């Protein structure tokens, strides 16, 4: 974890040294260039109206009021939370189960790790394109199996439920390995002595999990949940390539809606206001998760 997250005792080990700022300066400059200037642009747009030609009018907080009362935004936000909720509910338990079942040593460990990490290293639009090809109703492997072998009518360009199931399956395919790798790293760090002690005490598999493995995984699980929350909440490319937000608006998540407004309709003011609210929600929820999951650490 980071410097900002150590329990208080840890910090007394460090020496006070203001010159450390020189070490941080390059990072600070690079990130500030990339974060502060664009953020100021967004704030600037969010309170103005433009009709092109670089002419702007002061609008105050009108865009924010409009957005917070708009059904379109509420719907996109609702879909986004539903999606992220489903993703976390599936990927976290599944990741833990797979990590627990993985071999601890031997030649199969690197094979498993390499194969599992593979989906994470495929560019996001290729992931979308790959699942598109995979699910085409008559010529894709999954589409063909569903429609012709199992006889289930499956076409995600027509059916919102099929589109949702496909996007969720795609994300589980894409990202569960991240949870597996993190949990696995937590598990291999448990010394054998713990298991032997548990065996002597006659502990059940469940108590080994509950009192030895789960506490050891807590830190990596915090990271896994945070990363999965942020990334699934910001998801754009994969659903955009796979469904384009459709059918209708059924898979238009926040990012997709935002890009539609900003680059499609060129409504810079409303898009900027939406960006700020979107970012604020991500920050707030991440902070809540983080505080909840680490509140016992200081004790």
């Amino acid at each position, binding site marked *: *974890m*980071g410097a*900002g997250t150590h329990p208080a005792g840890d*910090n007394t*080990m*460090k*020496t*006070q040294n203001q*010159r*450390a*700022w020189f*070490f*941080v300066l*390059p*990072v600070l400059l690079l*990130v500030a260039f*990339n*974060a502060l200037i*664009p953020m100021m*642009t*967004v704030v600037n747009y969010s309170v103005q109206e433009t009709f092109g030609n670089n002419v702007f009018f002061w609008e105050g907080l009108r865009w924010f009021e409009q957005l917070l009362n708009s059904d379109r935004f509420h719907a996109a936000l609702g879909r986004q939370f539903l999606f992220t909720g489903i993703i976390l509910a599936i990927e976290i338990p599944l990741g833990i*189960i*797979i990590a*627990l079942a*993985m*071999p601890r040593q031997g030649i199969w*460990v690197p094979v498993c*790790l390499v*194969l*599992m990490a*593979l*989906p*994470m*290293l*495929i560019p*996001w*639009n*290729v992931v979308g394109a*790959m699942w598109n*090809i*995979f699910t085409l109703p*008559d010529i*894709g*492997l*999954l589409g*063909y199996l569903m429609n012709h072998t199992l006889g289930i009518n499956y076409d995600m360009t027509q059916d919102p439920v099929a589109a949702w199931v496909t996007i969720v399956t795609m994300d589980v*395919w894409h990202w569960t*390995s991240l949870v597996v790798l993190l949990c696995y*790293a*937590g598990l*291999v760090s448990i010394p054998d002595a713990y298991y032997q002690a548990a065996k002597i005490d006659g502990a059940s598999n469940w108590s080994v999990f509950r009192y030895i493995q789960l506490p050891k995984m807590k830190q990596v699980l915090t990271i896994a949940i945070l990363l999965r929350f942020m990334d699934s909440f*910001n998801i754009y490319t994969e659903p955009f*390539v796979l469904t384009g937000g459709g059918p209708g608006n059924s898979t238009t998540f926040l*990012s997709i809606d935002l890009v539609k407004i*900003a*680059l499609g309709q060129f409504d810079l003011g409303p898009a900027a206001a939406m*960006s700020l609210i979107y*970012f604020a929600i*991500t*920050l707030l929820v991440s902070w809540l998760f983080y505080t909840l999951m680490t509140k016992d650490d200081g004790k």
Partner: protein
Amino acid sequence: MKKRSLIPILYILFLMLPIYWLIAMSFKTTNEILGGFSLFPQTFTLDNYRTIFTTPDWYWGYINSILYVSINTVISVSVALPAAYAFSRYRFLGDKQLFFWLLTNRMAPAAVFALPFFQLYSSVGLFDTHIAVALAHCLFNIPLAVWILEGFMSGVPKELDETAYVDGYSFPRFFVTIFLPAIKAGVGVAAFFCFMFSWVELLLAKTLTAVEAKPIAATMTKTASSAGYELGLLAAAGTLTIIPGAIVIYFVRNYIAKGFALGRV
């Protein structure tokens, strides 16, 4: 074989199915793909790959992507190293706030920054260059690299630093010859993640380029929409984008598991 080893096997099978399908498609002719369903390529063809390796538009896409990803990885890791050292060893004014602020940038949706980034990089004259994409990806890669490296560095006892100073090492010499080798697993893991997130990102890379530095992913999107339904070609291009990732994982395979456990990532 125990019953529980079935779980990873089934999971890996599930992971491999769509990848198999992509690879199988890339060896089929367009006629065969559109003609109907076939589990294996009936008329095995390398034409799709031949097209990619002989069309500058295609292979430059790969070169561009690899260029900006490499530049980004080098920049991110090299500026993150001293910063992570400062965070793990010293207390200074505003350190906690700064660390948290860095992490918040990892949370920003790329869609939020697309348009402002376009304007920013156009105004400084870097639009459509490799360095623009590499710098833009620093936004989320530097915080991650600092986070990972700080974890690894805090795992190295402070006595190592003190002993080196007593022995008369200067700071740069200590850092390069003693400290870096002690955290080389961390550097590997950090570089791996920087490579990964820069390689897979498309939205910003596409926004910041037009012709000269266009990433492979953008070439694919263009083909998908303009050339009609060339699924075989698209599948071949997709298959080729998996290879750099596979090579990188192979090199860090031993660090991934050990690395996560060592560093408090």
